[in-house]
């Protein structure tokens, strides 16, 4: 087995530099790589292009990087929960590239799967389709979308083994598997790191071949963005 273990977020993030493009898994605050985000803040690198479905909230997730003005450009599908983001976007400090959520996921998977481009109906006839090739398949117009890669992809899993095999819990899976495939270098942080063989080989969501570095995160706050409940009768 090829051992991918590094000691810490610090060691995992060594090599990430200002100006790089970084993918970060998660949907809202669910399944985000909390420990690596903290490390990126500490590194004080900037001019980053961040590809992530959302941009965190003001005081959690990618909001930490926005507060420190470390992000030059966000590539996301929805960015609505962050005042600092709004301020920087409206003032022109921050570039924003908005991509339909399904196209974002598929473009990441495509990059990881060696598919340089594919056709999708999403965005045809809208601003998203402007300047893109249109082709009719089965009587329906589609646009050509290209694969989306990154210098580093950073994902967060529930359990992982030392060779990089990952298992996710609940809807914290979201963008993590597709982004794990898409990074030139992919870092996985996990809640629990185990020995090879401890995970059932039938039940692994991301095979270790896609992962270059793995470590067990020190702490996870796992903040809830919208706490909705019902009362017991």
């Amino acid at each position: 087995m090829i051992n991918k273990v590094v000691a810490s977020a610090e060691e995992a993030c060594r090599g990430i530099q200002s100006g790089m493009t970084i993918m970060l898994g998660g949907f809202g605050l669910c399944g985000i790589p909390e420990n690596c985000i903290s490390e990126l803040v500490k590194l004080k690198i900037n001019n980053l292009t961040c590809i992530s479905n959302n941009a965190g909230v003001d005081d959690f997730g990618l909001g930490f990087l926005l507060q420190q003005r470390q992000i030059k450009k966000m590539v996301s599908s929805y960015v609505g929960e962050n005042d600092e983001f709004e301020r920087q976007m409206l003032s022109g400090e921050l570039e924003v590239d908005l991509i339909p959520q399904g196209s974002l996921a598929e473009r990441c998977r495509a990059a990881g799967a060696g598919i340089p481009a594919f056709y999708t109906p999403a965005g045809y006839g809208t601003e998203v389709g402007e300047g893109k090739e249109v082709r009719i398949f089965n009587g329906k117009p589609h646009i050509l979308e290209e694969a989306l890669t990154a210098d580093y992809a950073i994902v967060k899993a529930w359990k992982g083994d030392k060779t990089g095999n990952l298992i996710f819990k609940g809807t914290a899976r979201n963008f993590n598997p597709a982004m794990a495939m898409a990074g030139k270098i992919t870092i996985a942080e996990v809640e629990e790191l185990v020995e090879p063989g401890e995970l059932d080989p039938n039940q692994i969501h991301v095979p270790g071949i896609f992962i270059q570095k793995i470590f067990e995160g020190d702490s996870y706050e796992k903040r809830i963005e919208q706490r909705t409940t019902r009362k017991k009768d």
Partner: protein
Amino acid sequence: MALDKNGIAKRIAQELQDRWYVNLGIGIPTLVANHIPEEISVDFQSENGILGMGPFPFEGEEDADLINAGKQTITALPGAVYFDSATSFAMIRGQHVQLTVLGAMEVSENGDIANWKIPGKMVKGMGGAMDLVASADNIIVAMMHTNKKGESKLLKQCSLPLTGVGCVKKVVTNLAVLDVTKEGFKLIERAPGVSVEEIKKATEGN
């Protein structure tokens, strides 16, 4: 009397058919889940990665790893399944989801929909809406018939940047149920006590 938001949701729930997989957008569409007729089985998909979505959890039982596309804590029903975003949109794009219900700022008489961007205002993004409307065979828009200024949201042509082209099949508003046909909007049903004239007046498109 015009319907309230719950009334709109309840009316849409009548459109659901047995054995359908359904994706509900944020806002009024979410309320549809509360009004499913008992005699049919439907499953709810949320595009962040769950099929078989259940109600909100009991207080104290929230799980940060279990949310819906509105980032709300939810539960999973027996038979539920979790999956990643690429697989989720494979379901949507591949038309395995039979019905999408979502809100809109504007709908045009040829079925165009605008619901993601107001020029000059903060743009939050389209999320999964563009994939949903471009893919679904069956899209119902749930919205108020007019905006806060009293202007019609059912137009000849959308004035806002589009989310999708020619995709809306049905609109359910506080005033009426309308099909989108080749001849434009077709009035199917009036809300209780709402006159045809009121609906015509509130509808710019044909």
